[in-house]
Structures are given as C-alpha cells and as structure tokens.
C-alpha cells in the first residue's frame, strides 16, 4: 500500500538522521584516539632515524580528515535537527522499530 511505503521511507529517513547524529558524537572520540597513537611510536633512543616530519604529516592527515568528515556530517545534519526535542527523538526510535 502506498501509505506503508511512505511510512517506511520516513522511518528510514529519521533512522539515517539519527545515525548522522551518532556519528558526529563518535567523531571526537575517534579523533582523540588517532591523535594519541603517535605516543606509542617511541622513536627517541631507539637508535632509529628520527621521523618527526612523518609524525607531523600523520597528525595533519588525521586533522584534515576529521575536518572533512565533520564537514560532511554538518551538512547532513539539517537545520531542523538542532531543534529536535528529546520527546521527538523517542518517537523516532519507535519509528525505527517499525
């Protein structure tokens, strides 16, 4: 039935929107993890050649990637999402189950 299709589509839409919000919540945690990885590369005193520049490149690669992902997420979050009250999110959750 056409009505069912429409409902399914709506639920899918809100589902995706909530995943975008989830992603934008998880992104800083991922970023923190990636930024801490160089701490594990203990190069000093190991006799190997120093690779500070490579480390720097890694840091900036992570940094710019985070910016890119954050930008995509920010564009995907529609303006109305800023005003979603908590009650509505609950409704969304129900819609998801459908």
């Amino acid at each position, binding site marked *: 039935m056409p009505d069912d299709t429409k409902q399914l589509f709506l639920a899918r839409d809100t589902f995706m929107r909530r995943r975008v919000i989830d992603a*934008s*919540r998880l992104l800083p945690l991922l970023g923190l993890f990636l930024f801490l990885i160089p*701490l594990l590369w203990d190069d*000093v005193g190991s006799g190997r050649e120093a*690779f*500070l520049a490579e480390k720097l490149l890694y840091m900036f690669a992570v*940094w710019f990637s985070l910016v890119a992902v*954050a930008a995509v997420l*920010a564009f995907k979050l529609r303006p109305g999402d800023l005003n979603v*009250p908590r009650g509505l999110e609950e409704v969304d959750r129900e819609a998801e189950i459908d």
Partner: protein
Amino acid sequence: MFAFDILIEVCIGYVVLLFLVAYVADRRARQGKIGWLRSPLVYTLSLSIYCTAWTFYGAVGYAARSGIEFLCIYLGPSLVMIGWWWGLRKLVRIGRMQRITSIADLISSRYGKSAMLGGLVTLLAVIATTPYIALQLQSVTLSFGVFAAASPSDWPVQSQHATAIWVAVGLAVFTIVFGTRNLDANERHHGVVMAIAVEALVKLAALLAVGAFVVWGIADGPREIIQRINESPIAMAPNQSSRWLALIFLSGAAFLCLPRMFQVLVVENDDEHHLSTASWAFPLYLALLNLFVLPIAAMGLAVLPQGSNPDLFVLTLPLSQGQNSLAMLVFLGGFSSATSMVIVASIALSTMVSNHVVMPLWLSIRRQGATVSGDVREVVLMSRRLSISAVLGLGYVYYRFSGGGEALASIGLVSFAGVVQVLPALVGGVFWRGATRVGAALGVSVGFVVWLYVMFLPSFGPDVLLSARMMLEGPLGIGWLRPQALFGLHDVDPLVHALLWSMAFNTTAFCIGSLLSFPNPLERVQGAQFVNVFDYTASHRGWSRSNVDAEDLLIMAQRILGPSEAQALFQAAADAQGKQGYLPEITPDFIDSFERVLAGSVGAATAHAMIGQMTSGSALSVEDLMAVADETAQIMEYSSQLEAQSQELSRTAGQLRDANEKLTALSVQKDAFLSQISHELRTPMTSIRAFSEILMLGDALDAEEKAKYSKIIHDEALRLTRLLDALLDLNVLEHGHVTIEQERAVLRDVIDRAVFATSAVSADRVFTIDRNEAREAVQIYTDLDRLSQVFINLIANARKYCDAPRPRLTIRVVRVDGGLAVDFVDNGSGIPAESQSLIFEKFSRLSDQSAAGGAGLGLAISREIMTKLGGSVTYLPGQGGAAFRVILPKLPMERAA
C-alpha cells in the same frame, strides 16, 4: 629595515582600518542590515581569538623547545568543536534561552542566580586572565623591539614600557568605544566581532605567507623541509604521554571556560546553525594556522644565529632574509592576535566585573536600588568602562611586575589551568540536575586555592611570592605539602601535577558538596531549565505575584535600557496583551521576560535582585509559594472540571439509555399499533365480506333478510370509514400539517354544541349533565370546531363508559394558574391508577368493548388537538369518578356581557 615612522604609520593605518570596519559593521547592524555581518564564516573567524599572540609567536617557540607537543594546545579545541553535539550545542542553547552574558553569569544563573558564585567566578577569571593580557602586551612590545634593535638610534620611544603603555591605552580606547556602546550584551558587539574576523584573516594570511616563504623561499620545497625537520634538534625531544594528554584536556576545557572564548562562542552567537559550520571550519582554521609552525621552527633553528629567541622566529626569519614587507605583514598579524584577544577578553571581563561585582555592591549600598533616582544605565556603562581600563591596567601592572621576561611565556598554560577550575561546575551544572550552589562554590574555591598554591604562586619562581625554602621543603618543613610535589607526587611534570591535583580536589569538593546539600527552590528550577534545555519551549515563571506598578518598572527599565528601548519593550508587551499605551498588565510572564531582558544588560543575579527589590523583596517568598499553591489549586480545579465532565458524560449516557428504552417501548407500541389496526380493520371487513357473499349467493333470501344484511354491511362500512377518518385525523394532527382557524366565542356555546351533538350516544340511558352556565359565560379565542371535537369525545366517553346506575356528568369551569380549564367529571368507577397513563395512547381501551363503537383513538386525538391549540387534556385523579381536565389555551380574556 623600516624607519620608525613607517612602522608607526602602518600600525596606525591598520588600527584606523579596524576602527572603520567596526564602525561600518556597527552602523549596518543598527540599520538592520545584518546580512553577511552574521554569517557562519564571521562566527568561525571570531573564534580565532583563541589564537593569541601566544600562538602567533609562541607556537613556533614552543615547537622549537618541545617538538610536536605544541599541537596539543590546538587539538583540544578542535575535538571540542568537532564534538559540538555533545556539549557546545547545549551551552549555546542555554546561553540564548537564559540571555547569558558571561561565564560567571552562566554559573551564577545555573545555581539559583547566586551573586556569590558570580563574584567568585569573576575573581577567578580576572586573576587568571590578567597575566594573559600582560603576555599580549609583552608580545607586541617584543615585536616592536625586534624592529628597534635593528636601528636603535631611530626610535624615539626608547623604553619598552612606554610602548606597552601606548598599546594598552590604545586598546582600552578601542574596546571602550566599540565594546560599551550598547548595554544589552545580547544585542552583541557587531563591530568588534567584525574587526576580529578581519584580524583573524590577517593572522592566518601572515602565518601562511611566512610558511610558504620558508618552504619554497628559503628551502627547496617540502622534501627539504622534511629532511631539515628530522635533522633538527626538535626531532630529539621526547614525547611525554601524560603531558600530551593533559594538554589536550586542558586546552579543550579552557576553550569552553576562558571568558573571551565564552564571549564569542556563546554570548556573541546569534544563530545556532553557525555552530554546525564552525564545527568543521574552526578545526580547519586551526590546522592551517599550525601547518607551517614546525617547518618555521626547524628552519629558524638552522638558519638564525645561536641564541636567537625562538618565540620571535616568525618575525626574525623574514627579516634575516631581507623580506621587509613580509615582516611587516607578520608584525600586523602578531599585532592582530594580541589586540583581538585583549579587546574581547576585556569586554568579557568588564561585563563580569560590572555585573557580578560592581552592580551587586552598588545595589547593596543603595538599599532602595533602582527605585530611587539616578541613571542605572550610566552606572552600568561607566562601571564597564572603568572595568575595561582596570583590566588593561592590571595587565600592564602585571607585565611591569613580572619584568616582562621569559617567565611570561609559561604563563599561558598557568592561566588556562586557572580558568579550567570552572569546568566541573559548568559541566555539572549543564548535565547534572543534582549539582547545587554549595557544591559549585566549594568546587570552584577549592580548585582555585589549590591552583594558586601549586601552580600560580610557584610560577613566579622562587623567592618572588613563595620563598625558595618553602618551595623546596614545603610550608613549615612539611615535605608532602611542597607546592610542586603535593602528597609526594614529585616525578611528574609540573603542569600535569598541578592539573591533576586542582581538578581532583575541585571535582571531589563539587560532588561531595552537591550530594550533601539541598538546593533552594530557585536553584532547582534553574537546574531543571539548564539540564533539560531542549525540553523547555517556554520558560518557567519565576515571578508569580507582584504588587509592583507598571510605571515603576518602566522607570527602572528606562534607566537601564535607555528610554526608547524601554518604551518600545513595554509598548510591545502592552500590544501583545491587547492594551493601549505604554503600560502593560504586570503579569508573571511579563515580569519574567522583563527580567530576562534586564539580565542581558546587567546579568541574571543583578536583574533578579533588582526586580526582587521592586516586587516582593526576596526571591521565592511567601507570595511565590502562594502562587505555587494557586497553581495547585488550578490543577485541582481542572481535575474537578474533568470530574464534572465525566459526570456529565454519565448523565448523558443515562439519558441515552432512557431514550433507548423509550425507543424500544415505542417500537413495541408500533408493533402493537400495527396488529391493533389490522385487527380493527379486519373485523368490519370480515363481516362486510361475509354478508356480501351471503347476498351474492342468496336467491333464497327474502327482502327483510336482504335489508338486514345490507344494513349490517352499511353499518360496518360506516364504522370502517369512521375509523379511517379518525386515523387520518390523528395522523394529520401528529405530523403537524393542521390548520387552526381561531375565532372568538363564548365557552358556554361550545359546550352546548358538544352536549347536543352527543345526545344521541347511548340515548337509551338516562344521563344527567350538571352545568353552571354562569361560570361558562367566558370569552374564548381558539379553533372552535377542534375544541368542541374534544368536548364531544369526552362527553361521549362519559355517556358510553360511565357505569354508575344513575350516570351523571359534571361539567365545571375552573381557573387554574391564571388560565381557564374545563373539568368533565362523571360518577362512575373511574379509571384504575395503573391505566391512567395509558388511556391517551392509540387504541387503548380499558375493556375490549369494541361493540361500544370506538376505535380507541378518541382520547389520543383529543390530546393531539389540545397540544396543537396550546392547551392540554389530562386525567384528573381523585374526583370520585373518571375525570378529565381540559386546560384551555391562555389568552387575554374578559367576561362576556
């Protein structure tokens, strides 16, 4: 190398440009042409005041000393911005909903509009920010010094201190002119923000230009730079995991807690959507700003002579290569970094000082507060201007006091750690409803004291504020209280040490204080509003009852907001209430919104206190409690309304049930009617058919028999006709298509006619009729035929059914309720009580005396007629026989002659 004149000219030219930008932006904003003034881009660029001269010059110095660690200072804010959905979004929403003017205002407002907490946070902010302002003055002075060193004879201003004074005074003037123009902080400082955005671009352009010059000008491209970096001594700097983590945390937290950051992030934000753009654009800005820092540091260490100050590499590197214009751009970039930070910081601090220190003091000195004469608006503005001057003055004093040496360089992190002491109260206040004022005050003050002891005081070095002996052996020789090795923690980095202990003590005190204390009602209300900010569409009502005069409020509002703004505000409120003129009804809602407008000017605590003085005195007084009781009463009333509604419903249900029963009865009656009528019709038809068949067959019948049978057929046919006539008559009457022809007559004549017409009924019986003809001489005005039809029916019934041996009918005219009625009373056995309600129904007959000739429709017709005429006919019990009362329609009557 530039001559001093050119440098000064460029400097002044740049400042004039900023003035112009700020002026134009302010003017456009006042004309309502906000447009691009308020784009997400401007918002993002205004956040760049996070990057002060400490970043502009200091990042390279930091990188030259400690390697890649310098990045952490920018990673924290980047992660905070990227994770805006966690906390920043809520903070900005709260700031807009509650009209927050500063971080001190936020904390004070959250914890029951506590003036004490506001003052405490202000004190902390001033102490932590002053060194930072000094740092900016120093950086500008140092950069001047770089040019001066090249040609000392050229420079009229020999003393660096004099430079610092000039810079401080210039900044104060700029800030006062553009920062204290309007009072309502929520109107925002368009001019200042625009100027800052321009400065942000200059900063970025300068650093990128130097970076590009270093990579492609001095070096041979990225490849050589990578090689140089790996060969430089920086590459040998060890990574300190604890410091790395601590720096990310510290910078992220300071990004939220720094008064100037709070100012641009929350207070100056006028569209939440800008935040989503800034969430990626600001990290991008930070990344670009830091992109070339390490290359510049590595190249500086390699190219410049030993012992050069790495903090000034950004400036000295182009100068050493003869790139004077580039150096000038760098100088402007550094100048921009310093000035924008100082401007916003002093605006933020002055707002805090005037709202949380000066105004509460002023209000408590003048007990009568805003109700007495005097322009509060001027007082607030003046206190802000003085605060700006004082803050810059303090910065200068600090700069002089600390000697302007290298010691200042480390003050940035000390300052960060100081403001971060607000973080537990901030985060707890926004996410935890159980956080109380006692907890917040304890947490902030304990953290503040610990920070002072383990970080701030030792930062001046031994024997300045703390004796070297004390720093080495602890106070009174107690080793485990040594400032930089508290509780024996001496192996860690001083920064980590200080941050760990101050935050640990702070958070613990905050939690314990919150758990053990009970918040007052206002605190709980504010707590709920802050924590559930996304659930609240309308704000709660704070002021429930008031005996304040609208005019008094207007007078106060004019003093604070200015006459035209205040009048516009009041007029709009009156308009919204549908009232003419300037004075609205003083409703709790109005006072509530008015308080929020005031809060935008003087802070939540002061606004609350001011309105409190004018309304009922203290916050949440007996009146407020009464209002709560009122609301409870309203709720109870509502529930009783619900109860009434449900009663109404059950009543309706009862009525429906009755109607249903009646319908069922009617249906039964209809069935009975149908069977009755078929019976009534069939009886005569049967005899007509039988006798007509006999007639058809009958040759043997004699004339007498023929005549007899024909008469029976005729009589039955007549009876059938009468029945059908009666039925038709009843049908017509019941369905209202009846014409009533009213005329005047004397009642006596109508009765005469009826008695005469019925004289043939049961004519064989002796029947006496008693009448009082004198009383019957009454004028009536009605349909006479119909009325006599009723009378005939009643008299005929009496003649037919009166079972007395000497039947007698009494007809009497009586007055009932001012109307006229005719009673027909016979002396028979009457009608049994259980049948009295039935006799007016169709086909109801007490005995099956069909032989009496009636079809049982007479009384039903009579009732319908009387209803149509506007009267009635009822059975009159207790008269010693069958008695009917005909109530005549009311009319103006007079006795007949």
